[in-house]
Structure formats: structure tokens, C-alpha cells
């Protein structure tokens, strides 16, 4: 429809989480703590684990992510991990957000003092 965007808009934090999953899913390490550390290390935002899981859960319910549960490991006190991976809709949403951002920022690098 003319008034509806092609894919639902992603929030700022949702983008970070989705990018985190995308970075980590190749190494089979896309679970909460790893995503949290990835966001912290790259963006400098020291977010809380509950915020990460709340967002992951919301993205899953929107159909952007899928999840599965791994086996318990001893270094986690015998607790299981929950892994996430991107669904096609998630990839599409990220792509749209990226395009929108780069298109809007194009030519402004010098103004934003990005070298």
C-alpha cells in the first residue's frame, strides 16, 4: 500500500542487536552474552543482559530472528545457551535500515567530521 513502508522500521538498539547476531552467527556464537560483549566492544554501549534478551525476544516475535537452545556447559554452571540466527525478514529489515542511513548520510562525511 502506498502509505506502508516496505519493511517495519527498526529501532536504534534493535539494529545493534541484529548486527550483533549477524556478526556472530557464522561462528555459532550468537547468544546473549556474546552479543552483549560484541555491542560493548564495538559501539562502546555497556548494555544490560536483560535489555539484550528483551530485544532479542521482541525481534523474534516480529519474525526477524529464530532461536534454538544449546546443551548445558560447565563454565555456565550447567546452564543452557539460547542461540539466535537471522530470518530473511530480519536481513531485509537490516538492509533497509542500512540503506536509509547511508543514503541520508551520503556526502555529509566532512560535515560530520568523519575524516
Amino acid at each position: 500500500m502506498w502509505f506502508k513502508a516496505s519493511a517495519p522500521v527498526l529501532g536504534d538498539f534493535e539494529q545493534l542487536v541484529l548486527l550483533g547476531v549477524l556478526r556472530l552467527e557464522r561462528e555459532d556464537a550468537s547468544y546473549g552474552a556474546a552479543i552483549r560483549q560484541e555491542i560493548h566492544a564495538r559501539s562502546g554501549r555497556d548494555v544490560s543482559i536483560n535489555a539484550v534478551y528483551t530485544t532479542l525476544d521482541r525481534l523474534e516475535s516480529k519474525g526477524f530472528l529464530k532461536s534454538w537452545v544449546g546443551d548445558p556447559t560447565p563454565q555456565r554452571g550447567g546452564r543452557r545457551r539460547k542461540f539466535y540466527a537471522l530470518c530473511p525478514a530480519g536481513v531485509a529489515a537490516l538492509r533497509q535500515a542500512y540503506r536509509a542511513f547511508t543514503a541520508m548520510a551520503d556526502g555529509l562525511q566532512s560535515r560530520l567530521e568523519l575524516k
Partner: protein
Amino acid sequence: VKKTDPPRLAIWLLTRRLSAEWRDFVVGDLEEEFATRSGSSPVAAHFWLWWQTMRCLAAPPPVRRSRLPLGSSQRDSRMRTVFADVRYAFRVMFRTPSFAVAVVSVLALGIGANTTIFSIVNAVLLRPLPFEEPERLVRIFTRTPGGRLFELSPGKFYDWQRDARSFEGMAMYQCCGFRELALTGTGAARTVRATAVSAGFFEVVRARPALGRVFRQEEDTPGGRYVVVLSERFWRAEFGGNPDVIGRTVKLNDEPYTIVGVMPATASVASWTAMASDVWVPLALTDEQRADRGNHNRYGAGRLKRDVELAQAQAEMDAISARLAREFPTSDDRWGAVVIPMQEEIVGNSRTMLLMLLGAVGLVLLIACANVGNLLFTRALSRRKEIAIRSALGAGRGRVFQQLLTEALLLAGAGGALGLLLAYGTLTSASTLLASQVPRAEEISIDGPVLLFAVGVSMLTGMLAGTLPAVRAGRSDLNDALKEGGLSDGAIGVGTRRLLIVCEVALSLVLLMGAGVMIQSLLALRHGDTGFDPNNVLTMRVRLVDARYPSPVQRSSFFDAALQRIRALPGVEAAGTINDLPFADGSSQTLHLEGYPPQREPVAVQVRQITPGYLRAMGIPVQRGRDVVDSDAEVLLVSQDAVKLYWGEDDPIERRAALPFSKTVLRQVVGIVGDVKQRSLTEGPTPTAYYYTREPSGRATFVVRTSVPPAALAQPVVAAIRAIDPEQPVVDIRTMVQVLDDKLTPQRFSALLLGVFAGVALLLAAVGIYSVLSYIVRGRSREIGIRRALGARTSDVLRLVIVEGMSPVLVGVAAGTIAALASAKVMRTLVFGVSASDPLTLTAVGATLALVALMASLVPAYRALRLDPVRVLRAD
């Protein structure tokens, strides 16, 4: 590297809070990251984990598929509301950290001070003594014909023990003053605190030995073997805790004592001299001593039978005393017996002082509450719009109330936690100071009841400070609040705020008044006339051991030689000895005058044994006649009050009198001396008789007047005494000023604390007045602007603000004066030399408070003056 475990409390909280759906993933993730982080810095890892935990507790990931049974949904939603409120309160708190810091620190100060005092009260007054069924343990005294409590004479004690049926057991003991045994033969000579106890003493106290046994009945006789029971402390210090000490001997007073038992550490009670001993020995009285009814120098303790009330025991003792008075009219007439619970006896005079301090610190908390209430109120009003929107969206008044109260309680909780830390810090750093101020100080700790008290006080504070703002904010008019530029905040709740100022000022005045009279009382006692000159006087105590100095001649020559050596020291002006210094309990006796009929109602005077030089060393003036001299034998000096009591208008000089313990020796009065406060600083001078004898007892205190600072002479004087007998212990080396100061420690302690409380109260009141007035000025800025525009002068504006600020202050001063006069009743027993409702102090305190209030209102007044009328009016 040692593996650090994550804090179990945090993990437990998380597993409780998180739904089953998320528990494994979240907790597992946190544990995993904690393990990596604790590798580099365990402390930082703990901080990190707790931070994460708090965030999770406040907002856990949502539960998607509710598996909860239907019945619990209501409870669950209510809990969620509470959680949501707490979460919101946290957010509000972090959004304006300066506000949170102000409120939390004021509360921490109030709650911390209260917790500190309560933990002292708890240890001293509330916690029972560490003996079995301590409520049945009593002290037994005689009551003198004059109505004073006094110690026991063996004759009376053994009659009571034989006849009283209310007691499971009764025992007699003698404390340090009489049986301070010198431990010799093991290195340096030192004095051992010893208590001599009658048979059955340990059974009465219910103190069971950790090793060996206690005394047998037959050991409490003069012919019995010399046996001793050691305290745990002494056993560890002297024998290294060796369990084979039973049967070995220890030399006390040059006599060998066989060790029969060791008491456990739990039996030591520092506040009860009998149980603070290093060692215990049998009292072992001779038959003659046992029959003595006149010498009241033993202490009595007893244990009531299980079903016997204190009043019953007292009644029985009264009946026995009445019968004994008929049986022994010369010695027992009008003497009585008094039974007092042990706890009450040990706590003694501290009770009133501690309760007064608890009351005072409670007032500080009330002032803190008023301050915080005012801050919360201001804040609630500035959030009027937010609250109005909530109400418009359907939040009931109860809901808004709950939200605001939650915030207040959260702040109070934080204040309480900080206050508890403050109390812990204070108690730890002041433990040595406390030990010299209150009995049972070694037992002061933050335990269950104290924690409960801190939590209770915090919650109460939160409710007290939070309720008023919450109620008032919930009541505000919706329409009004939502209108832009509507009635400005200042017009709201001004009445409530004025009331808070009135309360703060009134409470501060009560505290300042208390501190004022307490400090004056301390000064009056410290610098008041004692009858002697305490400056530049050095004192020290010796006790000659009977075994080494069996004859009076030997003792006399020891003291003569020692005094001669001391007087030869450079810097010594005069030196003498007395058996008991002023303020150390001493003998109190009746004189028998030669040539006068016996008095109908004999009055006892203080009786002290001195040597020549004592009066000069203490600076006690000889009013008439002369001082005692070395060539005298068996002479008396009497103080002016004693003359009035015994001789009336007659001149006592050259007359003779006898002392009750040696009625055959008639002593000539050679001089009249000045009156001295002999018994205590808080009582008036005591009539006293001094005697000089060639047969001195072995117990003496050297008193040395110096021309140099007295402490500098301590070592030379001790050396002079030791030169005569190197094995002679010399103890209690103090200047006379120190003796006075030690006597005043309770007064100094309460004056110090009250002063601190009053200072804090004054500060809080000033801050309160300042913040309320600033608020009012801000609210009325438009009005002030209009007035200025219409030509109001600087003085008019100044008057407007200062009248606004000072009127509640003056009402508060008036209310506080009434409250201070009412509380003077409590203070009356605690202050000396000054009236508890001293009008001068009251005026000074009121004026101080008004002045501080004026200063606090100057800043807002200055701000009002600087308001630019144009800008204020344009703001609309």
C-alpha cells in the same frame, strides 16, 4: 589462579525473579561473563554482576507464554505494580542524583546516629547478662540508718543466709580494693585483680569452670589450703593456655596457691568487678570475722528461687532485718537490707543518661524527617504535571500515593543502609572511648535487634517523611496543574512548609537547651571548688603485702623512707600518703567523743588515714590549729563540717575522740581543715576526719605536689619507691587532674554527644529554613516583581522575605521553649550546678537559633532583591 564464585545472593535473587523461560539463558550468560571478568579483576567482576543483577531485577525479560494458574494472577499483577513502582522510583532517583544524594545523606545521618545509640542501649540495657537465668541474679546491700545503700558485714550476711527462704543461694565477696594480690616471683612485680569469694559463689552466679573445679565448702575456712581459680585471660597470659595447670602453684602475696580450676572466657563480665577478676580465692573468714556486724566491707550477691518475685524476697529480708534489729540493738538497729536485680545494679546510673541520649537522637531523626519531608514535598509539587497526567489517564489517588510513598521508602532504605554503615564505622572507631564511658561496652555490636531497629527506623522514617507530601500531592487540582502558566508552585503548601519549620526549630531548641545545660554542668563540675587544688599533683597507689611487711613498724618505716626519697627529688614541693583518694570509695564511720554523751542519731563522717605532707600536697588549707607532723602519734584532723556535726559551737582542738575500729585509742584533735568533696564531684563537700597513726595499713596512695608538670615526675617517683623494695608493684599512676577527668567521663560523654546532636539539629534546621524560604521566594517572584515595578523599596522587599521566614521560626522558638521546660524534668537528674531550665541558657539558645534562622533567610532575601521586575513580568 583461584576461581572466584559469583555472589550466591545475586544468583539466588535472579533465579527467583526470572521466569523459567529465561532463567537458564540469562543466569548462564552472567555466570559465563563473570568467570571471564573475574580472571582480571574479581572486585570489578562483582560490581559488574551486581549492576547487571539490579537491572534484571528491575526489568526482567518479559514472560511470553503465561503458564501461571489463574488464581495467582491478581497477586502477580499487584506484585508487578510494586515492581513497576520500585523500578520507576529507581529511575527517578538516578535522573536527579543531586536530590537523591541530599535526601539519602540527611537520612543516613539521622538513621546512623539513631542506630549507634540504639546499639549501645541494646548492649547495656536490653541484652541480658551472659549467665544462666540472669533475671534471678540479685545484688544484696544493707541500708544504713541514713537510708543509703551500703555493703555488707559478715555477721549480718550469715544471719540472712541462714534465715532467708526466698533465695536458692547467697554469697559474699570482696573486691579489688581489699584483695589486690601482688603476683611475685614470675618476673616483674605486678598486681593481680583478685576477688575473694565465699563458698557457693560460683554456684550462685552459675559460672562453671572450663577446667578443674570451683572451691569446696571446707576451703572457705582460714585453716584451709591456699587454692585459686584462674580466669581464662590470666591462664592464657601466665600459663600460655596450658591445660596441665591444675594442681600447680602460683605465688600471690608471696604465698603459694594451688590452682584448682580455670573459668571459661564467657564467665568474664568487665562491668561486674567480681567477674572481671584475674583470679578468685576463697574468702576464708575466721570465726571472729564471721561474727563481725560493724565492718561493712563485703559485697553480697544472691540467686532468687525460681517462683519467687523480687518484692517477695525484699519483704522477707525486711522481716529478717527487723528481727535482727531487736536481737542486736547496738549494731543492727535501724539497718535494713535491699535486694536489687543484678542488671539494674550494673547498668546503674547509665540508664537515665542512655535513655536521654536515645530521646535526643530521636529528635534529630524527627528534624531530619521534617527536612526530607519538605524536600519530597517540593519535589512532588514540581512533578504536579506528571501526577496530573497520571490522574487524567485514570490513576486513582491511592495509586499516586503508592507511587510517591514507594519513592520515599526507597530513599529511606538507601539512607538506612548508609546509616548502618555509618553506625558500624562510628562504633568501631569509638570502641576504646566507649569502653571508658559506659558499662558492658565490650558487648556493643550490631546484632539482630540492632539490624531490626535500623530497618524499622528506616521504614518509619520513609513513611513519616513520605506520607504528607504524597497525600498533599495527590490532592492537587487537575485542571489547575495542567494549565500552562497557571498558579505558580509557591502558593501551594506554604502552610504545610511553615509547620515543618516550626517543628524543626522547636525540636532544635530542645536539643540545644539540653546540650547547653549539659556543657555548663560539665564546666561547673570541672572547675568548681573541690576543696583541694588538683593542678600539679601526681598520685600512685601501692599495697604492701602482709607476708613481706607483717608488722606495723615495717610498713611505717617503708612509707617514711619512700616519702623521704620522694621529697628529695628535684621538682617535688610536698609529698604524703592517704589510704583512699577523694572520689575513691572509702571508709565512713561515726566518731566517739570523749566527755560527750553518745549522740542519739550518730552521723557517719568520712575517715581517712594520712601521713604528714598530704594536706600540703593536696592544697587543703589548715583553718585552725596545725597539720600533723612526723613526731605525732595517733592524732586527728577534722574538717569544718565535721566540727559542726560533732562539737557544734565548741572548740574541738585539744579534745579527744575515738574511731569505732579502735575504740580504746583516744586521738587528740590537733587541727581544723577545709572541707573537701570526698565522695563525689556531684555531691557537696563531705564532713571528714583524718587520722595519722604509727600503725598504718599496707594500702596507700602517694600524693606528690610538683613544681614541674607532674607527669614528668612519674618515673622518678616510681623509681624512688622501687629503690626501697624492687618487687613492690606501683599502680594507677595518674595526675589529680586525670583523676577528676576520669570521674567526669559520663558527663563528658553525654555532653559531647548532646553537643554533636544539637549541632546537627541546628544545621538541619538552617538548611530547612533556607530551602523553604528559597522555594517561597521563587514562587512569589511575580508578586515581588510587581511590587518592585510599583515602587517598593529594597527595605520593603527585604522585610517581606524576612518576615515570611522568621515568623514560623519565632513560633517554633516559643513552642520549643515550652517543650524544653517540659523536658527539663528529665535533665534535672543529669545536670549539676546549673538549673535544667536555666533562663539565661534558654534565652541564649533561643537567640542563637533565631540568629541562625536569620542568616539562613538572608540568601533567599538577597535573591529576591536581585529579581529584575521586567524579566519576571515578561515571563508570563
